[in-house]
């Protein structure tokens, strides 16, 4: 996860020449100038994060503001924050448990210790490193598998909901004349909806709501269903809304390298969760599953991993913006027949 070649983490291994810029930042002189996370800089970083309420609450933007270091960009902070978060999670155990369990701590912490302590040299260091590497590799495996498993479970849930929806659609057709509900759905529309394959990504973030009452919350529906009747259980992809935006790419995560967030990953603005003010929607499902007009397509693999690593909580508190809401439905209708698992961008590619 943190191979030694990354200069920003392994102080003791770095052989590149370093220059100190005007701002006090230490940059290397490789063709690609990389920021060197010195101990002092990192301390400031940790302080800033702590001020902001912890690695899950802090964002690169706010950290940048708090740190007030010239020359420090969002890119630097973003990747450093990711690593910090990643390192922090297993690191919790390190503080709470015995030294033996400390072996499970992330490489960042452990390697830092190794690097800074001159006593840990020679054979012991190799052994520890190997152990750490082994654990990390295992952890990576677990992580990858977890993604796949959650996704599988989501697909399965989807099949349940689809079936239930179809049953209900049939039912409603039969009882169309019987009243008993707050409105009758447009049968033609329901039929059309029923035949669509559900895109697999749309529900992955928590979105602002729509006016739709009832549990039909695929974005295909929003403009279609005026009625307030509770028609059908949630019929979007069964995937957890909490995690990733992309099935397929997760399956491609075969190698360790792809699991490491690339350093230069642009922090794509606001792919955060947006929440609807409670008054907006009258439906529990739409609170969670309505689509949101943010481009998920085109983000890199590493980015997904970032989301996976970080608690969803991170990205949650963000004001609801839905400027593109009206546009959403048409691309979705067209894209509706896309096979499951394909990435679909609501705004075209």
């Amino acid at each position, binding site marked *: 996860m943190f191979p030694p070649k990354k200069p920003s983490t392994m102080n003791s291994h770095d052989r590149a020449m370093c220059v100190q810029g005007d701002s006090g930042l230490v940059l290397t002189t490789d063709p690609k100038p990389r920021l060197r996370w010195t101990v002092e800089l990192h301390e400031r970083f940790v302080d800033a994060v702590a001020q902001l309420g912890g690695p899950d609450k802090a964002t690169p933007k706010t950290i940048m503001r708090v740190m007030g270091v010239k020359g420090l960009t969002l890119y630097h902070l973003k990747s450093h924050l990711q690593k910090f978060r990643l390192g922090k999670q297993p690191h919790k155990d390190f503080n709470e448990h015995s030294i033996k369990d400390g072996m499970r701590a992330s490489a960042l912490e452990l390697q830092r210790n190794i690097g800074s302590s001159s006593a840990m040299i020679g054979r012991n260091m190799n052994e520890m490193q190997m152990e750490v590497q082994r654990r990390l590799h295992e952890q990576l495996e677990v992580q990858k598998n977890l993604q796949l498993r959650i996704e599988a*479970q989501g697909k399965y849930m989807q099949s349940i909901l689809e079936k239930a929806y179809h049953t209900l659609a049939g039912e409603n057709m039969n*009882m169309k004349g019987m009243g008993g509900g707050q409105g009758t759905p447009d049968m033609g529309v329901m039929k059309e909806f029923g035949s669509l394959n559900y895109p697999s990504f749309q529900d992955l973030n928590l979105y602002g709501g729509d006016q739709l009452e009832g549990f039909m919350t695929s974005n295909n529906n929003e403009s279609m269903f005026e009625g307030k009747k509770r028609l059908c259980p949630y019929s979007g992809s*069964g995937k957890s809304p909490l995690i990733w935006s992309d099935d397929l790419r997760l399956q491609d995560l075969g190698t360790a390298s792809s699991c490491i967030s690339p350093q230069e990953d642009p922090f794509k603005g606001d792919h955060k969760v947006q929440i609807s003010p409670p008054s907006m929607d009258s439906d529990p499902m739409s609170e969670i599953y309505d689509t949101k007009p943010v481009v998920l397509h085109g983000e890199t693999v590493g980015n997904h991993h970032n989301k996976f690593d970080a608690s969803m909580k991170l990205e949650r508190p963000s004001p609801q913006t839905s400027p593109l809401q009206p546009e959403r439905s048409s691309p979705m209708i067209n894209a509706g027949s896309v096979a499951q698992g394909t990435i679909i961008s609501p705004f075209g590619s």
Partner: protein
Amino acid sequence: MEVHMDMDIDIDFIHNLHFSPDTTNTTPSSDDDYGCNWNHWSPLVNWDAFTGPHDDFHHLIDSIVCDAAAPEYPSPDDHGASNSPSASITEEDDAEEETAAADDSKGLRLVHLLMAAAEALTGATKSRDLARVILVRLKELVSHAAHGSNMDRLAAYFTDALQGLLEGAGGAHSNGKHQYYMTCGSHHPRDDHHHQNDTLAAFQLLQDMSPYVKFGHFTANQAILEAVAHERRVHIVDYDIMEGVQWASLMQALASNKTGPPGPHLRITALSRTGAGRRSIATVQETGRRLTAFAASLGQPFSFHQCRLDPDETFKTSSLKLVRGEALIFNCMLNLPHLSYRAPDSVASFLSGAKELKPRLVTLVEEEVGSSVGGFVGRFMDSLHHYSAVFDSLEAGFPMQGRARALVERVFFGPKIVGSLARIYRTGEELEERGSWGEWLGAAGFRGVPMSFANHCQAKLLLGLFNDGYRVEELGTNKLVLDWKSRRLLSASLWTSSSSDTH
């Protein structure tokens, strides 16, 4: 606002509250409502109508009543902010603090009332009349509404439960959950379908908003995968398959090994219950079809069987079809939010069957209950703590999604609360403190199977996806516990027959 239910309120605490004795000597009014003119909030309580020399209790109730009796006509929303004029004057912060403090104090008041009601129903000062009075008061304060606070809704369900006990509805309802849900749920003519849809929607939400279901499923599955690593045939006997969601990810894991030898053939036998009418059998069949289709889509060799339980839900090993050379797994998911209550005898018969058949692995997921000393009231309070943690955990992850949470609470947790309190109440004094099923297995001669690093790691990663407040605890070598902020909620443990040979 977060009402911390970590305080250990005991009965003595209540009785030690010293309130200045108000003039409780009221004029006895009409007898039909025992002098409780609750609607007008005047403390015209004819205390003589209640037996009991416990003045502290009376003082408590009075203080609660007087406390709440606002100068103006009180609104159902009994927030302190509305009563105190100062809230509107000061800055927003102050007002917010006041409201938060008022919320907290309201929460505390609700807890006191609930406890008092529980006491009144079963305690030394047993008085159904008093209980009735308290419940009336509670019902005015609480609400199931989505826009309310967690405490309001939590208290609403507990109030419902107590009301049910008072009315003697705490009878032997194996389907109490369903009944309760229906009475406080839909009003539509097509109740059945809406009920089903609600349940499905809520189930989806539950899985997405909380790690409870996944924790149980994934921990068990990981252990199963490890236990059958080189087997050619795997047979899982599932105690309560429901929709079969657990097996989707297992199948994916089994089928995904592209390199190396092909994965094993998977066979699942699901227990179905005849007692619940035909629905259970139909559901299981449907689940079987679905799982078969899913396995096919993955290219996973699979077959599905049903095993009918006796009408009394006892499991008999003879009804199981076994194949030589298969690795046998017993999977026992209990108490997950979406699962129905299963009688202890039934569970015991299943686990006894496991003892007899010596499976490779027994995976057990069950609720962690706190220590249940103190009779009904003690267990009542423990239950209150438990569900308070659950509600809080949902809110912490999804503070703005009140409606979604309210739905999940209504469909799953409300009925669970009602059902479990009814059972606790019903069994009364005879209920010896039953330990966990893990303890049962230990006592029955099973030995624990160590939880692997990968499994523990998976659990931590999973929880990390949801919220900081969730923790994984390792209890012993074979058990992982899912905690919400120091409150243990759910545990997953692994067992094997001590005399079985390990491959």
